């Protein structure tokens, strides 16, 4: 037990800013996708964990979807929507995203055994992250109420200013 606590203490003291870990998930075609690939484009991104039975998650992604045309005029970034639905609802999640038009605007990923969710230490959805162009997590938020989406855009703009 003492060893374990010592180990955790060393880890935390050696910590740098959290990043996006490398995990295999599925893309909308059902093919394997390594989450490290997300960093290749070198733009900031919003990573939002959602599921078909999570109403606030859907509200948040809809609000971002509605605001996106205006936001993209001011900043260059992407939105990644990660479904945490199990294999039971995997096919439904894909149809659901298509039926909301998300596929046209978002990078859709499907994390059917919650590997990416665990790796990012997400315990409940909605959980959203803003990642800067270098892959560092600069903002995260659990839960959603209307208006929270404005904070995401602020974080995106801030991360771009830092870059300059």
């Amino acid at each position: 037990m003492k060893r374990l606590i010592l180990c955790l203490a060393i880890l935390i003291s050696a910590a740098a800013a959290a990043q996006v870990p490398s995990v295999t998930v599925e893309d909308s075609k059902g093919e394997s996708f390594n989450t490290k690939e997300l960093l290749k484009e070198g733009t900031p991104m919003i990573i939002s964990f959602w599921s078909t039975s999570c109403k606030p998650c859907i509200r948040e992604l809809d609000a971002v979807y509605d605001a996106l045309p205006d936001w993209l005029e001011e900043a260059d970034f992407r939105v990644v929507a990660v479904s945490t639905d199990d294999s039971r609802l995997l096919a439904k999640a894909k149809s659901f995203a298509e039926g909301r038009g998300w596929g046209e605007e978002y990078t859709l990923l499907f994390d059917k055994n919650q590997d990416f969710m665990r790796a990012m230490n997400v315990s409940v959805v909605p959980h959203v992250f803003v990642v800067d162009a270098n892959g560092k997590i600069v903002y995260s938020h659990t839960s959603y109420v209307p208006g929270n989406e404005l904070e995401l855009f602020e974080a995106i703009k801030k991360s771009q200013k830092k870059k300059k």
Partner: protein
Amino acid sequence: MKKTVITTIAAMAFSCVMTMAQEKGYVSASLESTNHFYVEDEANNFIPANQPQLGEDGIYASNNYLKVDYYNGRFSAGTQIEGYFPYLVGYPTNLKKMTLSNLYVNWRDDSYSVTVGSFYDQFGSGLLFRSWEDRTLGLNNAIVGARATYNFKDYVAVKVLWGIPRLGTGNDNGEFFGFGLTKVNVAGADLSISLSDIFSMNAVSLALEGSVLNKHEAISDDYLVERGYSPNILGWSGRVNFGYDGFFAKGEYVDAGKQMVNPFNPPADGNAQLIELGYNGRGLGVTMTGRRMKHMTQRLTTYSMLGTDNPVNNILSYRPAMSTQYTYMLTTLNPYSPEVGDKINKSGEIGGQIDAFYNFRRGTKIGGKRGMKIHANFATYYSLKGADDTPSELLFRDFSVDIEKQWTKKFKSTLLYSMQNYNKRHENNGVYIGLSHIVVADLLYKFTPKFSTRMELQYLASKDDQKDWMAGLIEVNFAPHWSVFVSDMYNHGDSKVHYYNGGVSFAMNHLRVAAGYGRYRAGFICSGGVCREIPAYTGANLTLTASF
């Protein structure tokens, strides 16, 4: 055996981590704590003293999870600690005290990965094998052992694993280093071949997949051996995935091997078939699913828990209800729990569902200025004929349709209708098949971009069970931090009991705190299509989630 495994993992984890911590890495962690304070409530038939885990005068229960991961390039390591002081009312009784539930080290290269320690995995849809964590269910059947994966380009993916699955927190003493390990071990392999990549078929995606899994559990009772039970249960599955221009088709056949249905009878052959067909494109999403399951008992431990109540977390495969998971209060009163076929007179189920989503785009005649979304679902399931000639009958059928419309920048409405047909006779030896009609209006109004209110109005009409219900909810949100709600669910058709609830939540960056008070009805809590039965309870709750 157990000790050797744990010592090896701990030593490896510690030495690797010590070396890597010198270099630049990062730590990610999360904490979740749910606390209940129970109150005696005659109207809800709830007395805390009747809950054995709370003790004579106990009113407090708490489930806690701390998870810490360390990442450094291709290396990662992590741990999870779970604490139950004691477990919340309705949770599996095998969750005791505090335990180190997970500990792992992982190395991941471009084409291969190796994990030693705890891991989660699933083959195909999970019907043959799935290890996962679902805190809502009190389930964490992580495998403690080793796993290796290898990918040859996009052509072939291979996975092999061996380990001991965990169940609850182990024995009654709740040993911290016990891991909750069982006397079972599993060995399995999974292979996926992408024919479309090998033969450069650009427009089409076609993959063949297969898995094999052996579960070993020693048998100490001679009579089980005499009846044909074996310590090894070997299962396999074959799968095909096809996709072309938005269309997709998936098929899976699972042979789960010799399953125990009743210890006094010989083992039965467990098998399942799953088909998914659909189309996604041009704002339309349609998915059709068909599934048949026969004797898919698939318990994590088969022989060592004979004669005891089978807890919900004693599973090592995923056999969820393939129907809509409703979220509104009155739509979840009678959720569907699938018939996996674990009894002589209940040998399985057959059925299917169809889901359709459509987005009427902005600027179209029906969509109007801001678009409109519509979704419909139909599902129907029948039991298979039992081994004792019990006839097949309807288990569950539902139809639902919901329409979402953003009227103005400030006002949005969602309307839902659901018809549910559920079989109480089959579920718990009741006497009837119930029918209910439910309507829900969910209205959101934004006064300012950061100040909004949401209201739910619900009504359930039924001639069965507890007859008619009504429910309402009002939520007021002050972004970015605060949200307050009150709700009530009232059974005016029969019991005249109010199930009231109210709460407040505060969220800021990595932290969320929620507090509330309410009366909860006995029934089922379902997560991911798996349900656990919960008793009625009344009390206050305090939930904290944080991630760093």
